[in-house]
């Protein structure tokens, strides 16, 4: 197994709101190894973006509460205890992030070339000319035609796909070890999405970079992820490698997610599996399993106590009472019952 570069331990993030304290991320643990792609999937509001922003320390300090016992260890050093100055030197150079919306995350008043050069200049002691030259190389690397001309243009002159490429160029300009891609292709068209994902994949291999891919597009996940973790209401409910999740998922929520996507070969207008209800209010999260109110296999215990972790393999584990030996599994689909390790 490759070197572990990021270790998240008991990450808990809450926000102060007018209505009370919203527990957006409620204690998650995960590891990231060199070169691997970890996909975090889940519905909006499940805490996937919040956890990735917490790793980058990008959440506004005024209303964010991070539990004192939470740790985000990057090469053994806790990022949550770093000063803002130290973070500045890590952000963009060791860990980079690509955001969902390429229009709002680029500076509209700065030329693209300057924006890429800026990130190089912040992190490395080189002259402006050299930084500019490297910026040009980056722009060529992300396959923007006419890169020289494009360097002098503003974001509004770029199409959505090209803006996203420019963002990737900025994010990768300092050859980071970890790339956090928060819905990198959600705003893009499928043919452009295919290009961008292929590009990210190539660059990832070239730089041996680890990636955290935050997305809800299961198609993209199937094509690029090594490991998947499924989040629901601020907790990780199931994790596993890509085939385990797609073919042998054990958590009813994972099932529901997979079943709600129309299969391209399925017949038309047949009712899709749809989850009833909405995710719980995170200001008063439920005591037991937070998925219980929407779960078709919900039992009494589910509402009372949070399920323990069940391990199925080295990589796959899930929090669900259905896998407790005492659970009644007669109603379960057969392929959902997996032998515990």
């Amino acid at each position, binding site marked *: 197994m490759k070197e572990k570069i990021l270790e998240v331990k008991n990450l808990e993030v809450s926000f102060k709101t007018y209505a009370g304290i919203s527990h957006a991320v409620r204690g998650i643990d995960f590891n990231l190894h060199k070169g691997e792609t970890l996909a975090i999937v889940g519905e909006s509001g499940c805490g996937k973006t919040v956890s990735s922003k917490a790793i980058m320390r990008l959440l506004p300090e005024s209303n964010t509460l991070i539990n004192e016992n939470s740790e985000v260890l990057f090469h053994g050093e806790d990022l949550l205890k770093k000063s803002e100055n130290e973070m500045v030197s890590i952000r963009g150079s060791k860990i980079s992030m690509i955001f969902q919306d390429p229009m709002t995350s680029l500076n509209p008043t700065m030329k693209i070339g300057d924006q890429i050069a800026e990130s190089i200049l912040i992190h490395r002691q080189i002259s402006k000319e050299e930084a500019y030259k490297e910026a040009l190389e980056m722009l060529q690397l992300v396959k923007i035609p006419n890169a020289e001309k494009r360097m002098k243009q503003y974001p509004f002159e770029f199409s959505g796909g090209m803006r996203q490429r420019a963002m990737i160029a900025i994010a990768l300009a300092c050859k980071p070890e970890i790339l956090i891609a928060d819905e990198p292709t959600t705003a893009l068209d*499928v*043919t452009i999405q295919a290009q961008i994902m292929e590009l990210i994949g190539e660059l990832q291999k070239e730089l041996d970079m680890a990636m955290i891919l935050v997305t809800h597009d299961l198609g993209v996940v199937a094509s690029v992820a090594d490991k998947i973790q499924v989040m629901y209401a601020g907790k990780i409910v199931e994790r596993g490698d*890509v085939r385990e999740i797609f073919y042998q998922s054990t958590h009813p929520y994972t099932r529901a997610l*997979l079943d709600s996507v129309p299969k*391209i070969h399925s017949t038309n207008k047949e009712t899709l599996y749809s989850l009833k209800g909405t995710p719980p209010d995170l200001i008063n999260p439920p005591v037991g399993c937070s998925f219980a109110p929407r779960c078709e296999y919900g039992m009494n215990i589910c509402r009372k106590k949070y399920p323990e972790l069940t391990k199925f393999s080295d990589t796959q584990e899930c929090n669900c009472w259905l896998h407790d030996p005492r659970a009644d599994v007669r109603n379960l689909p057969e392929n959902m019952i997996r032998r515990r390790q």
Partner: protein
Amino acid sequence: MDKKEVLIEVKDLKKYFQVGRNQTLKAVDGVNFKIYKGETLGIVGESGCGKTTCGKTVMGLYQATGGEVLFDGVDINKLNKKEKKEFTKRAQIIFQDPYSSLNPRMTVGDIIGEGIDIHKLYTGKERQEKIYELLELVGLNREHALRFPHEFSGGQRQRIGIARALAIEPEFIVCDEPISALDVSIQAQVVNLLIELQQKKNLTYLFIAHDLSMVKHISDRVGVMYLGNMVEFAESDELYQNPLHPYTKALMAAIPIPDPDTEEQKKRIRLEGEIPSPVNPKPGCRFVTRCRYATEKCHQETPKLEELVPEHFVACHRAKELMEDHPQE
């Protein structure tokens, strides 16, 4: 359905925008289609292909530059004010961007109730009940009626938009990327909801999206647009099983399928480059710059939609020979 009644007929629809001196952006350039009562017509294409403009022109939100949009036989571009109001009661639109399409200074209840007020459908308690009913119909709670749009997530806002469109019980709804901002599980809910409402109220949809699998799922017939032109048009199963236009083929290949094994084995047809600018387009096939089958003829002549297979139309000079060369591709 034996007897298909045409609800909307679009004839040679054109919408140009003047973007500078001698610069014309041809967003929609001669599109023809019919929408039958109770069916769903899907339009897919990449951004900038004119699908949204097409939808908005069909709704009368843009004045068409040329061509006609016949709603129940009447051209909607020639309506007077009163007729226009009558038309807006029968046709509604669900917008793509749930962030900018809701008035941030109105409560959700008022946003949904606005249409009811304008058309004077219900008042007082009845109006309130209707709003609650709509909120629950789209999967929100009654209490949400008093909140403001900024308190909602993107998915919830989109459902507010759907509730607003449904409030006045229209016959025809243009769904302009109604689900692209939503989560998968919510997408399924919304699509199921749209299908259910369609069956219950015999609604007609023009469903515009770039999510091809969803479009296939919901639509009876699908049109593929590229740079203001309709390049392929067929029944949805036929289109997905047997795409004929090189662009449609590439589009199909680019859809990521939520199945790791299929993804691994998939033969990719990479499209290089992006959609060229629709400003002052050159004559000839619009797809020529990205097409690997392009010939001299493609640069000269704009291909017309031809019925190669019954009920399956393609606008490509080489579609026929490609179909004969690689029947299984």
